[in-house]
């Protein structure tokens, strides 16, 4: 009955192939875009059908084997899918948000040279992402895992004539590869370690059923989980591998929305959720995850404070939000993490698309005025709320959501995470502090963004300022839908405290239940604490908002003074803590140097040197011997006589 599961990834794949091969011939944007979107929508329908079915179904875990893939000895890997609440949620998000963004792209990418290329890639991405979330075993997941990496490479490098785009794409892929390296190591170690216990498998269900064979908290488990986590950090842009995500904004905005906000970057979180059984057994790893998450959330937020590029701000906020999710995972709040994943998908997608619409408008204006200012620089915006009202409204809603203002989706998820960070057996008040601080800063920079973009007087170049239109329907409709979701999306997971029954958590329970007892809230029913924390976080959020208002609305000259005052700190965060420079210095350049050295010194100089040296030596000896052949008769005779004397003498005198 779930046997049509394979259709979900299949549709986008078809779209990718057909658009990829035919697109150039078709050339008609309506058809291409429409086709791509349609296929996404189809797979969304299938997803919905399966999802609904799952809701009513008592049995929550379903596998579907399509075909054998690799069969070698103990290794037997199938093309198989796994549908359970977790993947169900994911496919909903991916297909749903995906469809919207495809729709959006039709308008946004209008008139681009490689329009068909774009949609082909987008479909391909959807396919990979769905393989990732539906994959029934680690290897199928890995296909998706690398597939999305590939697609992000392709899409970031979409404007490949721009060097920066090419670099960003390469960086994204390579950094992801570093993560994949971890993933692969983890995978292999897991396979071997389980195998040595008699279970040769990579199937998630079987893994979940047999993790108990491994020693809880043992070295193996820790190593395996750490490796996987390294993979996660790569994919989900956590410390230390987060540097690629901001650069990834080189790609078209829909890409940023879909890949670098809603779906792909959350793959890490999903993967940890998928293997929660394993992770649950490795406290050390859990702690690491939590700490990394919290730190990422915090640092990314600080960087976000100082960026002027509208998309970069969002990028860092994404990193920061992902930090939250990992924090959640780390403290065992798996469902909370996934919950935030979902809500974040909504509001962050909306934010990106909104920014996209803004950029679209700005670009249009500049184009109209034949100017070449940067359409993404917030310092050139301002007062756009009148020009593009829909964009403004939806954008505002999402901002409020992300800022964690009560009754908006972001509030529920984020608050639950913070509460777990504080109260869980694995939690710690420090984690909460970091998280809360990040939340405050988020509120600050998000509203800074809003104020700088939509409020105040318009700082756009006079020639262009009057030509900024509201975006077309294809763009606004998705905005509205997502804005709406950002508003209400939280209500499926209202915590008990607020009289909700947290349906979301119950829904996901089958996936997490048998690890949940490992992590439960220590202070059971300590409602007072929970209340206080909630209030405090809300207050912090409002402080952030107020700060933003105070600095960017009340007296706009303040930021300049501020930066002048704390010039150093500002420079540091403005330059993202010089992380890129650091990596270049520590890894990239040395690698190049070593490479050159190995080539010039070892290969050419030593190895070839030895080889040619031998040849040269032989020739030298030959040349030396050659001159014994002097041509003088008597020399020859002499040599002969010497020979005779030596030979005869040797045997006669011994």
């Amino acid at each position: 009955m779930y046997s049509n599961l394979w259709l979900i990834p299949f549709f986008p794949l078809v779209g990718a192939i057909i658009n990829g091969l035919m697109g150039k011939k078709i050339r008609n944007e309506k058809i291409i875009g429409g086709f791509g979107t349609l296929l996404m929508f189809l797979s969304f329908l299938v997803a919905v059908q399966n999802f609904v079915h799952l809701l009513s179904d008592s049995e929550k875990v379903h596998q579907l084997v399509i075909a054998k893939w690799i069969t070698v000895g103990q290794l037997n890997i199938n093309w198989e899918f796994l549908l359970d609440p977790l993947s169900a949620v994911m496919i909903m998000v991916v297909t749903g948000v995906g469809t919207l963004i495809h729709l959006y792209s039709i308008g946004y990418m209008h008139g681009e040279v490689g329009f068909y290329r774009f949609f082909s890639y987008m479909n391909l991405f959807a396919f990979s992402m769905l393989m990732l979330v539906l994959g029934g075993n680690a290897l199928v997941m890995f296909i998706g895992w690398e597939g999305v990496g590939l697609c992000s490479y392709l899409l970031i490098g979409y404007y490949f004539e721009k060097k920066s785009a090419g670099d960003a794409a390469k960086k994204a892929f390579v950094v992801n590869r570093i993560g994949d390296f971890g993933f692969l190591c983890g995978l292999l170690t897991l396979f071997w370690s389980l195998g040595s216990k008699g279970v040769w498998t990579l199937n998630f269900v079987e893994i979940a059923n047999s993790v108990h064979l491994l020693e809880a908290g043992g070295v193996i488990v820790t190593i395996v989980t750490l490796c996987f986590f390294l993979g996660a950090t790569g994919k989900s842009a956590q410390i230390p591998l987060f540097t690629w995500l901001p650069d990834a904004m080189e790609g078209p905005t829909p890409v940023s929305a879909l890949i670098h906000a809603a779906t792909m970057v959350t793959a890490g979180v999903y993967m940890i959720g998928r293997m929660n059984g394993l992770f649950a057994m490795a406290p050390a790893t859990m702690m690491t995850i939590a700490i990394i998450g919290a730190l990422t959330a915090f640092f990314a937020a600080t960087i976000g404070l100082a960026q002027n590029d509208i998309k970069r701000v969002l990028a860092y906020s994404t990193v920061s939000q992902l930090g939250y999710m990992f924090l959640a995972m780390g403290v065992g709040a798996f469902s909370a993490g996934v919950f935030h994943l979902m809500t974040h998908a909504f509001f962050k997608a909306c934010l990106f698309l909104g920014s996209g619409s803004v950029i679209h408008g700005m670009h249009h204006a500049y184009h109209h005025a034949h100017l070449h200012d940067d359409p993404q620089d917030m310092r050139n915006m301002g007062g756009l709320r009148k020009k593009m009202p829909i964009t403004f409204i939806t954008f505002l809603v999402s901002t409020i959501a992300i800022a964690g203002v009560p009754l908006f989706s972001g509030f529920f998820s984020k608050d639950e995470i913070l509460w777990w960070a504080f109260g869980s057996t694995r939690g710690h008040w420090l984690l909460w502090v970091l998280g809360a601080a990040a939340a405050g800063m988020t509120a600050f920079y998000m509203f800074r963004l809003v104020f700088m973009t939509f409020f105040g007087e318009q700082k756009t170049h006079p020639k262009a300022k009057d030509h900024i239109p509201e975006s077309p329907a294809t763009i606004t409709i998705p905005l509205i839908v997502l804005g709406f979701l950002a508003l209400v999306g939280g209500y499926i997971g209202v915590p008990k405290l607020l009289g909700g029954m947290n349906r979301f958590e119950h829904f996901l329970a089958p996936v997490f239940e048998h690890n949940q007892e490992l992590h439960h809230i220590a202070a059971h029913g300590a409602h007072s604490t929970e209340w206080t924390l909630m209030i405090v976080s809300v207050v912090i959020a409002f402080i952030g908002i107020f700060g933003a208002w105070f600095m960017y609305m009340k007296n706009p000259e303040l930021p300049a003074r501020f930066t002048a005052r704390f010039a150093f700190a500002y420079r540091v965060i403005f330059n993202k803590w010089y992380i890129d420079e650091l990596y270049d210095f520590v890894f990239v350049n040395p690698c190049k140097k070593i490479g050159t050295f190995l080539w010039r010194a070892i290969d050419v100089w030593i190895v070839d040197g030895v080889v040619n040296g031998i040849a040269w030596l032989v020739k030298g000896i030959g040349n030396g011997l050659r001159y014994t052949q002097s041509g003088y008769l008597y020399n020859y005779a002499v040599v002969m006589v010497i020979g005779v004397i030596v030979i005869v003498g040797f045997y006669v005198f011994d």
Partner: protein
Amino acid sequence: MELIIFYLTAAVAIVSAFFVVKSRNPVNSALNLVTTFICLAVLYVMLEAPFMAAIQIMVYAGAIMVLIIFVIMLLNLGIATKSRYTHALPIGGILSVLMLLVAGYFVRHGEATATGGEITSEVINSIGHTELIGRAMFVDFLLPFEIASILLLVAIIGAVVLSKRKV
């Protein structure tokens, strides 16, 4: 008595042989060589091999030496004007001395063990050296003898082909 003769002849042979090497004028060398040959002939006689002695004189002192001197004259090689020795003089000396040592050593410490063949002085005196030679030559060593003839034929051809003025 016998010993004295031996030593005398030996001395002369060695000295003349040495002068073959030493003397400046090829002709002198040739004449010294003749002397050596004659000394050897004497020794053959002492070894009860008169026939050998005879052909030693004829073939060597006669034929070969005449040929050599003839050639010397033909090419009228005078007294060597510049050094008559090659650069190998010192090493040549050393080597020949070494060789002498080696040879001397194995002659002293080895011994010619095969003895007691049927050809004793008596036999020789009774039958006569020449006949003995003849027997051996034509009964046991017929083939080598024939080959020798071929060899001489070849030599003749060679001499003709190589030195006849007009072919």
